[in-house]
């Protein structure tokens, strides 16, 4: 049982590195789907109660099916250039990712006071996923990639919750799901509009308010 959990965490970490390295948005969306699958497996591994099964299928359907479908549709509608022009180069991202992984292992080591056992791997995986999500939001230019980054960040939080064996209250997971679902919907709409307004969808070119006259404070 334990090694299944560990494989899930390891796959999550590998998926994060792949995300940092991927240059095409379509690739990112696939990685996202993979992470969704992994996450849906988690509740089953603890104990296969009816609520867990129902809940796992719910996560699977949302994270592995709905989100990727919506994002691909948005991508097609927008027919944006496939590749991604990041603010931080790919190799640099991977190196920063590595540093973050080491930091998260150190952090989970320091927070050993949590539940014992394999929590070390779980906490570090979730911290690293969260970091990857935030890093993608900050360093990628495309609006869709930022949405992907945000979803990865949410996955990280969900992973943190489940790895701390807090499975007994469904409310928090529901909250996460709700949050994700509506967020993706919303950004989809917004991305559509971004597309309609001008050709490319990177958010960097939208500078602040235009060059107004200077009010000289004599």
């Amino acid at each position, binding site marked *: 049982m334990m090694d299944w959990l560990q494989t899930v965490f390891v796959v999550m970490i590998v998926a994060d590195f792949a995300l940092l390295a991927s240059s095409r948005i379509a690739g990112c969306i696939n990685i996202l789907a993979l992470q969704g699958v992994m996450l849906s497996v988690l509740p089953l591994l603890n104990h296969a109660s009816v609520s867990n099964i129902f809940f796992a299928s719910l996560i699977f359907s949302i994270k592995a099916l709905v989100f990727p479908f919506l994002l691909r549709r948005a991508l097609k509608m927008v027919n944006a250039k496939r590749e991604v022009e990041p603010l931080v180069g790919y190799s640099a991202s991977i190196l920063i990712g590595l540093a973050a992984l080491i930091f998260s292992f150190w952090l989970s080591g320091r927070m050993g006071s949590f539940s014992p056992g394999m929590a070390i791997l779980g906490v570090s995986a979730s911290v690293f996923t969260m970091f990857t999500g935030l890093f993608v939001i*900050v360093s990628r230019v495309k609006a869709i990639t*930022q949405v992907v980054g945000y979803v990865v960040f949410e996955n990280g939080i969900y992973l943190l919750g489940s790895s701390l064996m807090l499975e007994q209250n469904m409310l928090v997971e529901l909250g996460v799901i709700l949050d994700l679902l509506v967020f993706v919907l919303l950004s989809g709409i917004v991305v559509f509009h971004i597309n309609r307004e001008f050709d490319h969808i990177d958010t960097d070119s939208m*500078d*602040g308010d235009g060059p107004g006259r200077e009010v000289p404070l004599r």
Partner: protein
Amino acid sequence: MDFFLAGVVILVFAGLLSFFPSVGARARGRIAFAGNLCALILCGGPAVSQLLHPAPVSLMAATSIPGLNFSLRLDCLSAIFLVCLLMISCLSSLYGISYFGGQGSSSAPWFWFNVLVASMAMVLVSANAFLFLFFWEAMALSSFFLVLHDSGKKDVREAAWIYAVSSHFGLVCIISLFFLLSLPGGDMEFASFANSAHSRVIAAAVFLLSLAGFGAKAGFIPFHVWLPRAHPAAPSPVSALMSGVMIKLGIYGILRVLVILGGFEPWWGLVILSLGITSGIIGVVFAFSQHDIKKLLAYHSIENIGIIMLGSGLGVLGICCGVPAVSALAFAGALLHVFNHSVFKSLLFMCAGAVIKATGTHNVDEMGGLMKKMPVTGACFLTGASAISGLPVLNGFVSEFLIFLAALHGLSAGGTGGKELVYGSVATVVALSLIGALALGCFAKACGIMFLGEGRTECCNGAKDPCVAMLLPMMVLSGICFLVGIGGVFAVRLLANPVLELVEGLDARQAEISLLQASYSLGLVGICALAFLVLVIGGLAARTLLLRGRKVLPSVTWDCGYSESTARMQYSGSSFARPTLEFFCLLLGTHRKGPEISPPFPATSSFSTHTPDFLEDSLFRHVVNALSRCSEFICRIEKGSVHLQILLVVVALFVILAWSMLYG
């Protein structure tokens, strides 16, 4: 005390009445004047009775807001300022009736005028810090709107803005001052401030904050930036009230804090003294270099505030060094100068207002020969000018005489006082003599260029004396100048109680004796003034007797035979001031736009000088520009992309987490 409140309420109510559109402009002015008049009677009564036999009247009523209870206290110190306030407000509202009468009904700012007077009266009697701040800010707000009276012009708005910011700076200092005073208990009553002990450090901080906070209102040197801009911008009755009374509230604030703090340190006296000296000398030098008559008078307010600070600084030194004679006389001189300055400064502003209304220009160099066309205004301005330069027969001399007497006491007491007192007295005398002489020169220039000689431009042709309603307050004020000048001895008797209140640290008997001695000297000064007047009348009578039988021919002024001399050839303001100001050139930094006489045949050319206020330029403008530059730099973040801002959020999280882990 209820008379007092009734007076204030009537005042505000009269102001409100002026909002009704149906009421004509003049009627509006009369209502406001009536309000001021009954405020004079209702509030003035208790104030004067308070001066004669000191029995502090107080009233306390809790309000719903925690910490703010409606507690008022009328004691001698506030009575003096109240008398000045009510007298000047009454006279300037009378003056304002016809001053505002002319321009359309809606423009008369009577509501704000009465609110200003009412809030000043309440500031003087409030004994709760919260209440004090409430009325202090109401005063600042109403005077801000009054300065904005003719808001059409750009520089009026600029002046009003600078005034608002500096009065807000003052408010910030005063708020922190009251908090420091209320430290142990947190109770906001002045009484509890007085009897709670303060550590030396807190007392020093409170003292410096009071100088900064109330200085921003009194307008001495480092905080004077708004004064030469706000007073010319305001209409004349308002600037008469503002520079006559409102800046005195800054002095009242400082004195009130000194009374509350009780134990002084010698270096406090020296700080006040040095502020007084710098304000006095720099104020009069800048006044000398001004062309705009109201700016000239505004800078002179700074100089007179400097003289008042000299007096109070010497007073504080006297208390610290244990020489009651010096402190009693110095405080008496300072308080009398507060009264005198409010009299002759509002007189000068009223005359300036009449002249500006008649000629339509502020520039002194465009006027000339107005004495022939506006004899009464000219005479009043002359009285005011000689009073402000401290010439003997008038009231300016009496208060400066008291401060001189205090300094001489300090010196002749010699060793007993202590080194600071000797240095203080010497500095006071030298500064006062310099300021007196320069003020004399400056007002000789003002009177000479404006009223004497020939009219320099055609704008003086149409000038004539304003109507009686405007002349009456001027004459009343000139009369008061002469009265106090000759009857100085009665003024000192009136001042005895507030001075004793300020000096209650030392033995009252010694202070009493020195005050008696001063009134003996002032009696003789009065007699000498009367003798002088008799001599002058005798001389005039002798001259008319001698000339009765002889030929008296009118002719042209001596012009060494050059018959084409025009009015423009007369000495102008800047040429009159140039020799004196050469000595202070590094202080002034006057820009000269000299004539470029290049073509062989003389073409028309012009020469003009402009004296920027170096302190304002070097201090105020740099601060404002620096702030706006770094704010522009920071604003770039606001325009930054989403990524930068999200990064900010994440970085903030990590920084706080790391900090709390290390120090948590």
